[in-house]
């Protein structure tokens, strides 16, 4: 794999040109982009007005009443007991090629990961910069491996680090048993690359965050609202896979071909 070394330099100085979540970025825009923005605002009027006129009425500006929001009502009330959630989640995640391991606590999770990394002779490991993951004490447990902590310094090209890692370790924010899905989010401490670029992905999930339905993960995103949403919310249901060659299943096409959920608690 060839890495563009210029890119890594660019990354650290990228802050200057970056666009914050809610600020008006017109001021710092290069002229061509400012021009596109202006054009966009002009076109918006015509574009949306055209839609209204095709719909045969004046422009709607009030929120319409949406009587069918979300899942059918019988579904919204439905849930499994914890035991069943664990069983279903495990069955569904495994059915599509993922692995689920139950551990009592973070200490046990750390032990399991260390053993796994040793068995596989993992050399490069990258994890999110989260206090829980620190408690895994992987640095002590795996003195021979190189352990990188996402975004712990400004010099490193973190994407490249993740791409070169054998194992990436992330914390799930929640999970849905019905679809066998874990949800991970992005932030400065939680690079999206950590669950995407390494060969193996290990997801830590507290049992208390395992829900029944996908809706139990989605509705809170509406409640958080635009300004509180992370840039990336990723729902992961198993290993990267494709059947594009003669329907023959291959795993690890672009993302991790091996994925573990460590169910804690």
């Amino acid at each position: 794999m060839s890495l563009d070394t210029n890119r890594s330099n660019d990354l650290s100085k990228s802050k200057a040109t970056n666009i914050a979540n809610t600020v008006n970025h017109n001021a710092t825009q290069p002229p061509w982009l400012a021009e596109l923005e202006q054009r966009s605002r002009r076109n918006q009027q015509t574009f949306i007005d055209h839609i209204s006129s095709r719909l045969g009425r004046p422009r709607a500006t009030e929120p319409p009443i949406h009587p069918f929001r979300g899942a059918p009502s019988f579904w919204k009330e439905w849930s499994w007991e914890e035991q069943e959630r664990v069983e279903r989640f495990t069955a569904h995640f495994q059915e599509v090629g993922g692995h689920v391991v139950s551990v009592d606590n973070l200490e046990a999770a750390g032990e399991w990961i260390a053993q796994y990394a040793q068995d596989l002779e993992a050399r490069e490991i990258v994890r999110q910069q989260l206090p829980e993951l620190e408690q895994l004490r992987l640095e002590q447990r795996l003195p021979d491996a190189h352990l990188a902590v996402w975004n712990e310094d400004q010099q490193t090209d973190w994407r490249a680090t993740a791409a070169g890692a054998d194992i990436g370790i992330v914390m799930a924010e929640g999970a849905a048993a019905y679809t066998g899905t874990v949800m991970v989010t992005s932030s400065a401490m939680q690079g999206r690359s950590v669950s995407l670029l390494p060969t193996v992905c290990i997801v830590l999930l507290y049992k208390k965050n395992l829900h029944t339905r996908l809706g139990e993960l989605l509705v809170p995103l509406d409640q958080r609202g635009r300004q509180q949403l992370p840039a990336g919310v990723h729902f992961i249901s198993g290993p990267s896979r494709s059947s594009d060659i003669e329907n023959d299943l291959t795993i690890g096409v672009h993302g991790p071909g091996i994925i573990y959920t460590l169910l804690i608690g």
Partner: protein
Amino acid sequence: MSRSEKTSATVKERADIALNNDFLRKAVRFTTERLRNGKQLASTEHGNWDEWRERGRQIRLHTIAHLDYYLNLFVENARANGVHVHFAEDTAAATEIVMTIARHKQAESVVKSKSMVSEELHINHALEEAGIEAVESDLGEYIIQLAGEGPSHIVIPAIHKNRYQIAELLSKDAGEELPPDTTVLAGYVRRKLREKFLDADIGMTGCNFAIAETGSMVLFENEGNARMVTTVPKTQITLMGMERIIPSWEDLEVMATLLPRSATGQRLTMYMSGITGPKRDEDSDGPEEMHMIIVDNGRSGQLGDPEFQELLNCIRCGACLNVCPVYRQIGGHSYGGTYSGPIGAVLTPALNRNVAEWDDIANASSLCGACYEACPVKIPLHDMLVYLRRRKVERGHGNRWESIGMKGFAILMGNSKRLGTALKMGRILQKPVVHNGTISLKIGPLKGWTTYRDMPPMADDPFRERWSKLEQELQQDQVTMDATVKDRMEQLVQARQRSKRGDFDES
């Protein structure tokens, strides 16, 4: 390479080319069969399927009926998130915006994840003309790109290629001999594309759904390439049909229930990603600059048209392709447009607003109604095909005999809808054109069939029954599949069943 919307060959001629390719038919039938069964499995396992479909339909109907409000809301929110939103009324406008961004970014390469809109706009062609490399990163798309072809199925673009053909293409690409082994071939593509991702200046994606209330975009995929495209390059460009909107994340649960189950029989695709704006200041990955181009390109023509507005409800799952006897017979490329199968037969002429083209594609359908029954948002495609025929005749593109026949259609369609009536009409309309017990002049719903298959007059046998016979016939055809190909495919299925990975569970 034929990526033009309408090549000079007719559907019939293209179908003949397709029909000559034995493997194509077998592979298409095998895959669609498997996906269809997978879908049946997933939707029975998931109870109350019809209630979910109805819910999906209602959400789509509601959003489209208020599209001006929701699209505007989406745009305002996406902008507030720091996205550069652009509007393009047609291919030329969309291409110009992409090229402007690419030029100012001094882009040398663009890495893409699957986007039907980009196919529709022929963006790769425009990029390549400007000397910019456009790399498709979906495994199937990468393969057909090497072959210089367009996708033949919405969900499985390289459905028509076998592993030997793929090994040959990839060997040429690699400059060394690669064995026809799926793992080796996929491994090669992984390595090759990793480099492309890390080198690319721009990542380009489509958009499955756009959430109005938070200005987020949602992508469904299995390989992780869409995640790569939205994580690694510094600039992201997303092409989005203007109708992709849903109001909320809560509504996404319904779409996430319907789309993967209908497309591939999965509970959920391996990845579903919601992207809300470019990377935050402190983030070390994700795009620094994010553009979304909202494309009309003929879509607004369906708005306010009572017969076709529901086309905009389509969530591009491909289920109607998998159940369509005509698609299963002739394969995707025969449709000659970006979108194939029953949805393509209606969408292509609707987007092109070209009445003269309508007969050709609209006839590549049996009007059996299977597409409607499979559709997760209940789009009455078979009715639309009849409307298309009628409009074509109304606008003077039909011949005299057909016009007489189509007037009969109009009268009958006036008081009743859907399959039953259309089928009864099929029988009535045959009357003036049946000679010596066979149909000599091909009218309306029968034309497609009589062109591609010999069909005796329907007499008193309802089309519905005939359809089930036809299906049996198609399935019997499969028995004549080349024995070695069949063996291999069966082994694959069995192996997967044994491995307990869920035999109908991948895309």
